[in-house]
Structures are given as C-alpha cells and as structure tokens.
C-alpha cells in the first residue's frame, strides 16, 4: 500500500477524517458531506488493487471511535458501500462525472440508511428526513473531489 507514493492516499484519508469531525454551526452540520466515503470511493475507482474493503472497514472503525457510536456501525456501512464500488469499478469508471455523482449519491444514501437501520436496531431512534441531507451535498461535491484527487494522483504518480 505504501509503495509508489501510497502514503499520499493515507494522507488524503486522514484529511477526510478530520473534515468529518471539524466543529460546524448546527445548521451547516446537517449538510456535512460524507468526506471519508467520497475519498474512499475515488481511490477504489482509481486504484482498486491498493484500496479494498478492509481499508474501508478500518476507516469506518476509526469514524466509529471519533463519533462515539457503537463500534462496528459505521465500519460495516462503509464496507458495504465500498463493496458495491469494488465489484463494479470497471463500469463506473466509464461513466461521465455527473453520472458518477449520481451513483455516489445512491451509495451515500445507502450508507446513511444502513447506519440508521443499525442504530434503530440498537436504540429506538426515529427517522427524520434531514438524516439524508448529506446526500445532496455529497452529490454536489463529487465532481470537485474527483478532479482534485485525479490531479493529486497524477502529480504524485501514485500507482
């Protein structure tokens, strides 16, 4: 994983983790995009030989610790979402950026719903529509993150 500037991948993932816990005002916080998921999906599409389900699971686990949720909730949701990308990466690669954005939106919705179902199973939380607001920002963010990370990958020649 660390050969050919693989360390940069780790760095981007760390930045994504930090972005997902930086304090925000309550009104903006409801729209916080799934930074970790977006970055993981990009690297899965670009370098599926380096980033796999195990990486996704570990990132989800760290997110669990950072967010203080029951250990394993975000980890399993992240692994399931990334699994879909891993299985279909050759198809998704050929789509245009906006089509990819829609797919990432579906993945993000699935991620949030899995987290919600698990939480619902563990404690009696009720569903509010604003749990799915991050999906919108995630769709809007994808093209920019895609272009930025592609630049990063080409500049550092990560293979």
């Amino acid at each position, binding site marked *: 994983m660390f050969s050919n500037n693989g360390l940069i991948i780790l760095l981007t993932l760390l930045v994504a983790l*930090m972005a997902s816990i930086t304090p925000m005002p309550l009104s903006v916080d409801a729209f916080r995009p799934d930074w970790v998921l977006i970055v993981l999906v990009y690297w899965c599409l670009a370098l599926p030989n380096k980033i796999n*389900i195990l990486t996704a699971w570990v990132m989800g686990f760290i997110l669990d610790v950072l967010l203080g949720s029951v250990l*394993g909730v975000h980890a*399993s949701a992240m692994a399931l979402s990334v699994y879909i990308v891993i299985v279909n990466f050759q198809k998704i690669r050929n789509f245009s950026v906006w089509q990819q954005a829609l797919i990432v939106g579906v993945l993000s919705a699935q991620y949030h719903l899995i987290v919600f179902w698990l939480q619902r199973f563990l*404690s009696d939380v009720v569903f509010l529509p604003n749990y799915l607001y991050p999906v919108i920002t995630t769709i809007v963010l994808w093209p920019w993150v895609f272009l930025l990370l592609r630049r990063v990958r080409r500049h550092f020649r990560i293979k």
Partner: protein
Amino acid sequence: MNPIFNQGISPVQRLTFVLICSAALIFFDHKMASFETARGYLQTLVSPLQYMANAPKQMMTWASENIITRRQLMSENQDYREKELFFHEQALQLSIVRQENERLRSLLSSPVRGGIKKMFAEILSVDSDPYSHQVVINRGTNDGVYEGQPVLDEKGIVGQILHVGASSSRVILISDISHAIPVRVQRNGLRLIASGSGQIDRLIHNFVPHSADVKTGDLLVTSGLGGKYPEGYPVSRVVLVRTDESREFSTIYSQPVAQIDRLRYMLLLSKEEAVKPVSTLSNKKVAMGKS
C-alpha cells in the same frame, strides 16, 4: 503493470469476513459493554486527530478575540466589574446561610454536606452523528476525570462523562436518547425522571399520573437520587403539560436550561472532599474551588 486476473481473496470473501467482524464488535460493544477500557485507549489514540480538526475553529476564535476594539474591552470590563460586585455580595450572604444550614443540620443530626471539587473544561468537538448527542472535552484521566462525572455549564446540568481518554473525554448530553436523569420540581418537590428525546431542546417525562401537580414554567432541579448528580442543580423548565384522560399518563415535555447547542466552557464536578491546592498558581490548568 497490474495483473488483469488478480488472485487472492475475492471481494465477497473480504466482505463476509468484515461483516462478521462488525457483527461481533456491535454485539460485544453494545450488549456486553466489554470495550469500556479499550475505548479509553482508542479515545487517547484518536485525540490528536480531534485536536487537529479543532484547530481552524480555535484559530477563528483566537482571531475574533484579538481583533476587538479598546472601547469594547473597556465596556466589557466595566460589565464584569459590576457583576463581580454583585456576585460577591451574594457570596457573602451565602456563606452566612451555609453556616446556619450546617448548624441546623448538625442539630438535626443529619450528615453535613461535603464540599464539591470543580474542574474547568473546554469543548473540543461536537459529534456530527445525528443519532447521539455527545461532545468531546479537553480533559482526561491526566486531569483526574472519571466515568459518570456530572458536567454543567453556567446555567445548569449538561450531561455526564461517558468515556475517558488520557487527554480528552466524551460527554453524553441529557438530551441523548439513551440518557435519563432523576429530577424534582423545585416548587413542590415532586419527583420525576427526565429522559432524553434525541431532540436538543426537549426532555420527556414518562409515567407521570394525571393528578401530579406539574405546571408549565416549573423549574426542574436534580434530586440527588441515584447518586450520579449532586442535588439542587437546575436541569430543565417544563414547556408542555397535556392531560389527556384517554391516555394512562400525562404528557410532559421540558426544555433544558443549559444551552446545549452552544456549549463552550463547562464545569466538571466530583464528589470527593475538595483537597487543598498544593501550589496555588503553578497549577493553573485545573481550577479548583470549594463550593
């Protein structure tokens, strides 16, 4: 060149393995609570990340505190001075009342209340997870924080310590869906339980009979039952009482007094007898005082 037909473990096998791991983790963490100590270590491990993620906000507050006019500072100073005088006068009164209370208590041969040690803490981050209401503060085992310690702000009870790391710890707020706190109505001493609702501005009181004397606007304070929270701190104010006779119990909602959505500085209380500070000024980090 990457091989086209890569060998090794297939994604399905990886996924199954990972999901089994998650299921085991969820079971042991939620049902058995066997990760309490491990969580402390994990909290310590990730605390650098939290400190780093907090840096931009810290910089903004630093800037906004530094870019301030002289006039503003002066008016603020004046304000604080007036307040200090006011509080000082109240403290004088309080010490007389306390002495009197202790004397009366000793006459009644009931135990005299011990002092409460206090520690100052600042908020580090708020969870973006909408399913749980937790915040992280910048004090840990190094400062003597322990699990279950009550936390309050200048208005009232905020919550209690959930997990402790070396230099940061996690506070569960009273509005969290899994939290409940024993309270009593200040007006008449009626005992209730305030359970979190998952909404930041609402606590729910279950199993209150229709005949109970609770009115809108009543202040609810901690009852000291259960031994977690010390007695007499304000918790919430009743905002809605609905007595619908077709239901078994009345519906009562209250709103936390503490400003849970804009926390910044908090106080941690600990029950043990306050120790005399060894060196008063060198240990600035932990502000102690006797109540």
